[in-house]
């Protein structure tokens, strides 16, 4: 599903050049649950952003589902991303002005799904996330764990094949964190491919494979389930 070759990302400011990613080769198969670990500033998030087609690599190739997307323009990337990739962030990134229901509705609107169909899909996903009783609430009225569940609901409502999670438990206490990880595992079991950036060893243990990044390079890979490799 994901195949990168010599993926390199360089950030340039006026006088400093930072190599965030340095020739990264990463393969993720459909149905895999991969955790990316590493110290702050090692390029984890940059890698995730490129995988999620939020950003372009400076050099190297990136094929998503067999299609080269590494050099697409932003609008083309959005088209590719739509319905295929769901995002979960550390800081939830819910829109404060929209209710739980409306936040989850967001990707469906841009996919031009009919209102009645949207309603059914949102109801279903929120029930699964155990947020069905909170649909009229605004994000600020929810706890962190609840907010993250809404964010996950939004990420998966359009049934994307790939879910990208950037430290999804970073802002949560351990109980809520555990719950979120269980949800992700369940989604993975139902067929979603998951790539997750995390600091936490415990969270990483939910995955099949742990990739360690250091200074923009993959230093080690730990396969937990050889059957999947």
């Amino acid at each position: 599903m994901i195949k990168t070759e010599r993926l390199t990302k360089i950030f340039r400011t006026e006088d400093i050049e930072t190599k965030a990613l340095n020739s990264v080769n990463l393969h993720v198969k459909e149905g895999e649950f991969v955790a990316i670990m590493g110290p702050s500033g090692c390029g984890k998030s940059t890698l995730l952003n490129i995988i999620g087609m939020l950003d372009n690599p400076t050099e190297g190739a990136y094929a998503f589902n067999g299609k080269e997307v590494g050099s697409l323009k932003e609008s083309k990337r959005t088209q590719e991303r739509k319905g295929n990739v769901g995002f979960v962030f550390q800081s939830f990134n819910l829109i404060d002005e929209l209710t739980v229901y409306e936040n989850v509705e967001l990707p469906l609107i841009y996919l031009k799904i009919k209102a009645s169909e949207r309603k059914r899909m949102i109801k279903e996903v929120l029930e699964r996330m155990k947020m069905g009783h909170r649909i009229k609430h605004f994000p600020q009225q929810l706890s962190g764990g609840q907010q993250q569940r809404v964010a996950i609901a939004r990420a998966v409502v359009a049934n994307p094949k790939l879910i990208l999670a950037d430290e999804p438990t970073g802002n949560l206490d351990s109980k809520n964190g555990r719950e979120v990880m269980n949800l992700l595992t369940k989604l993975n079991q139902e067929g979603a491919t998951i790539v997750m950036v995390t600091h936490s060893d415990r969270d990483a243990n939910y995955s099949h494979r742990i990739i360690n990044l250091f200074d923009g390079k993959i230093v080690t890979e730990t396969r937990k389930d050889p059957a999947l490799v």
Partner: protein
Amino acid sequence: MLKHYTKFAFRNFRSNKVIFAGSLTTLCLGALCISLLFSYVHNELTMDDFHKGEKDIYMMTMKRSPKAEWGLPYKFTPEDFPEIEGSVNLIFFKKDGTKIKFNQDIYTPIGMVADSTFFDVFGFELSQGNPKSVLYDSDAIILSETFSKKLFGNKNPIGQHLDFEVRMYQGVHTVRGIVKIPSNSSFKFDYIIPYVKHPLGYGRRQVSFFKATKGFDKNKFEEKIKYSNNNVPNVYPQLTESITSLVSLDDIYFSSELNSLKTYTQFSSGNKKNIDILLVIMLVILLVSILNYSNLQIINTNAVLKNIAISKVNGALRHHIIGQKIIETIIIIILSTLLITLGYNFLLPWFNDFVRVFLAPPIWKIFLINAIILSSITIIGLIYPMLIINRFSTINNLKKTNSISQKLKGKQVTVVLQYAMAFLLLISSIIVNNQLKLMLDKDLGFNDDGILKVKLYYEPPFNTESRNWTRERRLEEREKAMQIPKYINNQLASFSSIKQLSQGRSPLDVFPIDWKPKAGDFEFETLNSLVVTPNHQNLFNFNLIEGRFFEEGVDKQRGKKIVINEAAKKHWGIEDIENTIIGNRNWGDYEIIGVVEDFNYEHLSAKPQPLMMVYFEDFEAEYFMKFHKNKTQEGIQHVEALFKELNPNQVFKYSFLSDEITALYQKEKRLSTIYIVFTIIALLISAIGLFTIALYDTQRRIKEIGVRKVNGASINEIMLMLNKDFIKWVVIAFIIACPIAYYAMSKWLENFAYKTTLSWWVFALAGMFTLVIALLTVSWQTYNAATRNPVESLRDE
């Protein structure tokens, strides 16, 4: 999708209330001002455009000699020219020269006698009556809608009988038509009387208009008729040098050359300069609104940047983001348009009263104008914020929890420009106000204090039978008529409340006529002349420099003597008044008996011009009187009783000379008020912008403030730090605005002979005032931020 956009728009308004309220106020205030001014300016600029083919309608004018002013030709027969499609002659009456009596009430409206072709040449429409036939009926009268309302209220005016009276004629006329006079007509009147063959007035007030055929060449025609009035030297020996010319109806309103002609026709005058000033004010308000809106939108962009990023992550394309913005903008435009349309209709009566026109545009027009103004403000205002939205990448916006407004330099530029404009208006309004005060307080060189002006005697209508009277009978009748003025004089003399009295014309009421010194190489030129009686000197305190003023018993009225002013003496370089004879084109030669010191009988935009004073007794002339101390009320009551005795049923009118002088400055007064009002609005709009920036900027710096306080900064130091930036912008704006304001106002002051000084304190005052307002606006926010407990602000992170 539309539903989502709309819902999201309202949610955005709710969560950014200050920005929303600020944007709405900016748009409403800005567009309301512009649309009101626009209605007025548009009305002025489309003056007389409602006449079909107004460019092909011409008025005949004549100069008696090259240096004289434009007047009316003595003779013109349009029938002789094939280029002329149709023509109409109008005979105007003196102001206050007509009386219309209805139900015991007497009115003195303004109007004219017109040929039956009136409605063929002019584009006026009748709301009642048939334009083809109404002017053929010699006992008809056509009233304007306004005058008809005044007479009959909502009753049907058609068929009502009115007593009509002018100097040489009186008769009963029946209302046969009601004419609509549009607000953009420079030609305003209360009534039209159909042309009747017997003389109704004076030939000299007869104005000829004609409509030219297609392809008419004005210059050729003027060449053809140039000397047409000089061909009758036996009848009009004074016209041998005259030049006849044409003025297009379209040019009459703004023509300043025709000013003296306009005083005895019913055409009003416009001032292009004032319109230019209004256009500048409109432009400034428009720019201030655009800048402020742009500013608020930049701040708004900051506030919603993260939401945009989230939407993008969830599949929104650029057109979705733009679509969202467009819907938000459309909602704001619709809301403001509705509010403004309400506000416009609410303010229009006041505005009309203020600018002295009757504007009543239909509601859809107001709606449309405002929608256009609002669209241009929002579209131009959004260009920069939209560029910013595009410039920032999605990931950065997601990552950064704080806003990126540090990078938005544009905001500072807009604030600086906005304040520069506000300064410009503020400085101008102070100077206009100073100039007005200077003119009102200026010593005019004659006494106007407490002098009452009143007209007591109206000559009875001309008796047509008198043509058959014998010489004895005439003298007898004249003697009889003389009794009334004599009676008035005796009565006035018996009023103990009156201290001083004179009859004649007010020093402001000069008339143009042609003069030149007899000896030497001079040409006749039109100069201001004033009708006086001997008492004028003492009453008005004219300062005699040479010779003497008219004296009762010594000088005869209409004797061939004049008193001139210093300016006239200088004008012709007269050295010895005793040996100089001044010729009048119509009245013959005059001997100079005295010279008075110049006094300002005109608007102070000009230094005193040459003035010729003649001693005429005219029973219809006004009386001027000064009362003893504390006797004014009593005196007015006596005069009123006398007036009522002489003119039963007529409304008693009087005025004070000082009020008439103030009235001369009405235009400046209105300009000054307009300046003040719009300056306040521009400052208000700018304050909204600064307030919002302060609000969002200090919010952004909450953590910084916390850190500084933890490290020992005092509230004062924090306030100083926060306010310093805003003050810097205002100061830069001030530096930009000063030279521009200085230049613009020196130009404006060139219009006046007596100018107020452009002193430094005007600029300092404007600077201080704005600075204080800006400080108050900003401190409201910064104080809150500075006094906040740092523990709280740091815990937030």
